[in-house]
């Protein structure tokens, strides 16, 4: 089984603050992924500087293979001392794990990370170590496919304190919520967003502290091929379609003409749906043997809108699109949530009747460009072929 590692996070700023005092840094060298969540003392500018320094130093050092002791030592010696409080301080969690799920995690003063395995929350077996008088908890990681690590800043367990809850949201409540709400199809980013969004609700939309949730998941790789538009050379339709259909990846066809030629190649017909779950998005179609068939440019344009929200680390719109039935949301679910590897097959044939309308070829190529860029930012391996 080919495995893949994904990560994602969502941050809420303390109400009224422009900067977040929590910071997440991720580095990926193709084998190991290193994720650091640092929470700086206080809030605003000072906290932001502390957490930026801490996360950047730790992420660079850990991904470079430096020992935990040396990393912690460097942090202690580097952080500027706060004049008011007389301490230099940022709490942190560092996760360093490869695609087989092996690696380690070390935590300093952040709320304990939660381990989700077989759909249930567990505690990690943490071993305390003393460095320079500070206790750092180290966990050896051995994750199975579909295991998540959920780490958070203290804004999460303080959510609602003094507002709608007397003592905030305790760790056991967070666990109860995750046990109930996390679905096996959700990506790491979707889980982080879900929990942050619940915190925002408890804070009545005005977080009393910077609140950040970051998650990592090991998962099976899913390859998706997507065809957008018919190739320029009509006589080679069959060649291009055969190449698109190769392998056991999931298949998506975008566009009227493309669907027609793919259906013809497969010896079947496109059946078009007739309802509009979203008024801006034309109905989807169905071709036997193809996983998803949609209209072209208008659907892709909507997908760009959805993916901008998906990529945002502060937007609380749910990242999972399961249950939505319009073409753009179904594309978003397959490409951004399900896929780990995406191959675009972009035909550059020009539909003369489309030129001059907002659905012409330049628009289509621009959209493919933007979407592939968004997918890369979401951590996917993307290839684009122009025919």
């Amino acid at each position, binding site marked *: 089984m080919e495995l893949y590692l994904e990560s994602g996070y969502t941050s809420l700023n303390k109400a009224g603050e422009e900067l977040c005092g929590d910071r997440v840094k991720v580095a990926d060298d193709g084998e190991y992924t290193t994720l650091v969540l640092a929470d700086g003392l206080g809030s605003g500018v000072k906290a932001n500087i502390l957490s930026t320094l801490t996360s950047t130093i730790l992420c660079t050092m850990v991904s470079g293979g430096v020992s935990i002791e040396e990393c912690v030592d460097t942090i202690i010696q580097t952080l500027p001392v706060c004049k008011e409080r007389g301490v230099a301080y940022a709490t942190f969690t560092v996760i360093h794990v490869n695609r087989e799920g092996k690696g380690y995690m070390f935590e300093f003063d952040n709320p304990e990370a939660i381990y989700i395995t077989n759909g249930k929350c567990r505690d990690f077996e943490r071993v305390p170590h003393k460095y320079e008088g500070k206790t750092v908890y180290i966990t050896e990681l051995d994750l199975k496919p579909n295991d998540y690590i959920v780490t958070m800043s203290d804004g999460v367990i303080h959510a609602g304190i003094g507002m709608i809850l007397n003592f905030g949201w305790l760790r056991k409540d967070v666990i109860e919520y995750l046990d109930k709400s996390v679905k096996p199809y959700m990506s790491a980013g979707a889980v982080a967003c879900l929990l942050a969004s619940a915190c925002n609700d408890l804070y009545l939309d005005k977080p009393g502290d910077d609140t950040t949730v970051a998650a990592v998941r090991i998962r099976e790789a899913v390859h998706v091929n997507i065809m957008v538009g018919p190739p320029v050379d009509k006589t080679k339709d069959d060649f291009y379609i055969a190449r698109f259909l190769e392998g056991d990846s999931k298949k998506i066809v975008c566009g*009227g003409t493309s669907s027609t030629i793919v259906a013809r190649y497969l010896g079947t017909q*496109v059946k078009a749906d*007739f309802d509009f779950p979203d008024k801006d998005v*034309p109905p989807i*179609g169905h071709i036997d043997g193809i996983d998803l068939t949609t*209209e072209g*440019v*208008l659907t892709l344009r909507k997908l760009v809108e959805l993916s901008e929200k998906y990529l945002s680390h502060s937007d609380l719109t749910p990242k999972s699109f399961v249950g939505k039935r319009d073409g753009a949301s179904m594309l978003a679910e397959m490409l951004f949530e399900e896929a780990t590897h995406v191959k675009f097959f972009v035909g550059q044939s020009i*539909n003369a*009747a489309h030129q001059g309308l907002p659905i012409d070829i330049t628009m289509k190529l621009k959209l493919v460009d933007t979407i592939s860029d968004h997918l890369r930012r979401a951590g996917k391996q993307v290839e684009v072929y122009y025919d």
Partner: protein
Amino acid sequence: MVKVTVCIGSSCHLKGSRQVVEELQYIVKRKNLGEDVELSGAFCMGKCAEKGVSVTVNGKYYAVDPAAVEEFFDDVIVKAING
């Protein structure tokens, strides 16, 4: 049974195919003609240059103005039912 197919491709979508679809569905329901008319959708019919939304009635092509769906229904579809 009269088979009416409306194009829902990009170009026709911009010209108002959703309006045509919804209006046809509404008229069929109002006139209680569900037994006589079968509505369906189709991807691009290759007539993007026509002025109007592409619709076929029993295979015959029409370009329909979204503002005149009722007239189109009476002129073409009702005639097809009776003919």
